[in-house]
């Protein structure tokens, strides 16, 4: 009788490609060279866009935004595991996912540029807008997942969030609801080791994010988040399980935020150059390039071509962004409700007539 072992759990970690770019053939996911090239191009383009956005921000052409430098494998690898009918419910550090989900990237620039029209996504994109309140959006993923299941649609939902987000109560409620309702949701934590200035060890006393799945009776797994093959493989498996009615999964992509938190932050205030250097050696993009070079999929010419194409795309997006007409003041009132209330109609009238009055000098 006395002390018995009730239940036991083990949390695995999956790595497919080491920092030198060598892969474990047994674990290598089923990706065609074409697909690998697409992943690579997406990562390159994402990084170029990220760089360009930093410049735009420094020039005052867009506002504060969250860079993704170093996290390309984590969110791109995961997003790539989705089918078109699947949903993506992002946080705010998933620039690469926008590219994969077919959101015109000039819209992303427009949004970070302080214009909410950037969030007017093409119909059917099945990607929710950026969600700023940390940790709150995973519940929406659960509701959508519940709906997909109820609808018998076989579509799944991927939701992405940071390590800091795991501390919010809504993370807990989302995980618990997903498990209780066996909703087809993949919870992908980009554990980039920092929530602004708070390091992982002060965010939680748990050795891993993945083990938080135990609390919900859900599978939890850690993956090398700078290894795009591993991320893709593990996410794809979770997607398939969810699609087959086997419920949700928590994936911890163990990665690193190589940039400041946002363009308003200065990470040197709270972390060491050594730490950064350690992770720079594990750069996910360079790692994939090493693999591709060894596999004969990438030579200097191809590398330059991908880079040039990415540059050109980014330049085109910036141009398209800057060509957007300015927003009209009425835009403020346009989407409060489906039908504006009488008060809103009156207030819009008030604004417009005051602007007219101002034009007329009074």
């Amino acid at each position: 009788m006395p002390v018995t072992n009730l239940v036991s759990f083990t949390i695995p970690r999956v790595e497919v490609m080491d920092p030198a770019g060598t892969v474990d053939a047994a674990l290598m996911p089923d990706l065609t060279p074409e697909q690998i090239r697409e992943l690579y191009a997406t990562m390159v383009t994402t990084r170029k866009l990220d760089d360009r956005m930093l410049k735009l921000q420094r020039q005052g052409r867009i506002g504060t935004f969250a860079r993704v430098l170093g996290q390309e494998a984590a969110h791109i690898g995961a997003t790539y595991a989705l089918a078109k009918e699947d949903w993506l419910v992002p946080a705010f550090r998933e620039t690469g996912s926008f590219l994969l989900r077919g959101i015109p990237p000039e819209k992303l620039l427009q949004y970070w540029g302080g214009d909410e029209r950037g969030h007017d996504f093409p119909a059917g994109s099945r990607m929710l807008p950026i969600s700023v309140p940390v940790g709150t959006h995973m519940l929406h993923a659960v509701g959508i997942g519940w709906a997909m299941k109820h609808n018998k649609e076989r579509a799944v939902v991927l939701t992405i969030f940071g390590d800091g987000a795991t501390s919010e109560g809504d993370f807990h409620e989302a995980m618990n609801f997903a498990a209780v309702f066996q909703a087809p949701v993949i919870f992908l934590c980009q554990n980039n080791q920092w929530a602004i200035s708070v390091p992982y060890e002060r965010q939680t006393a748990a050795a891993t994010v993945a083990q938080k799945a135990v609390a919900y009776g859900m599978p939890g797994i850690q993956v090398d988040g700078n290894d795009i093959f591993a991320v893709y493989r593990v996410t794809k498996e979770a997607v398939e399980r969810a699609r087959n009615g086997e419920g949700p999964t928590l994936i911890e992509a163990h990665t690193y935020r190589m940039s400041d938190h946002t363009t308003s932050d200065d990470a040197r205030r709270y972390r060491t150059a050594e730490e950064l250097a350690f992770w720079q050696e594990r750069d996910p993009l360079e790692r994939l390039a090493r693999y591709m070079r060894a596999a004969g999929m990438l030579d200097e010419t191809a590398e330059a071509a991908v880079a040039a194409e990415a540059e050109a795309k980014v330049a085109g997006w910036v141009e398209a962004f800057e060509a957007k007409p300015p927003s009209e003041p009425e835009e403020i009132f346009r989407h409060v409700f489906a039908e504006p209330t009488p008060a809103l109609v009156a207030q819009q009238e008030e604004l417009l007539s005051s602007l007219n009055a101002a034009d007329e000098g009074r």
Partner: protein
Amino acid sequence: MANLNLVEAVREALRQEMEHDPKVIVLGEDVGRNGGVFRVTEGLFQQFGPDRVVDTPLAESGIVGMAIGMAIAGYRPVAEIQFSGFVYPAYDQLVSHASRMRNRSRGGYTVPMVVRMPYGGGIRALEHHSESMEAVFVHVPGLKVVIPSDPYDAKGLLTAAIRDPDPVIFCEPDRIYRAVRMEVPEESYTLPLGEAKVVREGFDLTLISWGAHVRTAKQAADHLAEEGVYDVEVIDVRTLSPFDINTVAASVVKTGRAVVVQEAPRTGGFASEIATQLMERAILQLEAPVGRVTGFDTIPPLGRLEDYYHPDVRGVMRQIRATMEF
């Protein structure tokens, strides 16, 4: 016609909307097998099954957050919060997401959701079971707020709320859940959100309320009429957001005086918004300041002292006299 109390009228609206639209889903704590702690959802689980009447884990933010996702994906969730005093964990989801998803996505994603909750005091309940904090929802752009005062309105307003394309907070005054029965059409019907109702005509003063205290107001008006002193017009606001100032102001232009009855704490309650808008619209017709009969700026007391806290007929009559004699 059926003779229904407010609980039954709400249930009828839920049942008919669930029959009418397979996307309508009821969810919340104990709403399923147990039929809700006030038995509002009784029988729905048996009729529609556990996939349409969903017992959830005990987490209000979870309920509302999940409902937001369901709504985005094309459903019309009707979430129940067990008492309005327990809605605060969901306040973030309501303010930060439900109310702004349409705006954030420029109309791409919308949240046609209703959050129902028993509301208000007067039932000698435990702490946190007697709150009337409607004002903290009325102030949130992008939320609608509806509070019915009788079974007929409850059915029509809830049906409209469920069909509304935007999120609606639907407060059900539990004090009158079973206090009144009235004839309610058997077929489904809607009442527009955003229209106040004149429930008693009069010429001397406009008495404005919503929810349970429309009854208090009517009783006060009736008493004064019986006494032959004042002829009071009573208005039921019904939807606090959008607020129908036109109906209310037209009445006050006619009577020249107004009193608002509100159960919530005085400071920052919706009565203040009404008073302010009346002043803006009708200061020249106002022969006295708009009177307020409200709860105090205190924690609502437990059962033993509760009656001292709530507006009552005598207090309303006293304020009417004061406003008339101003």
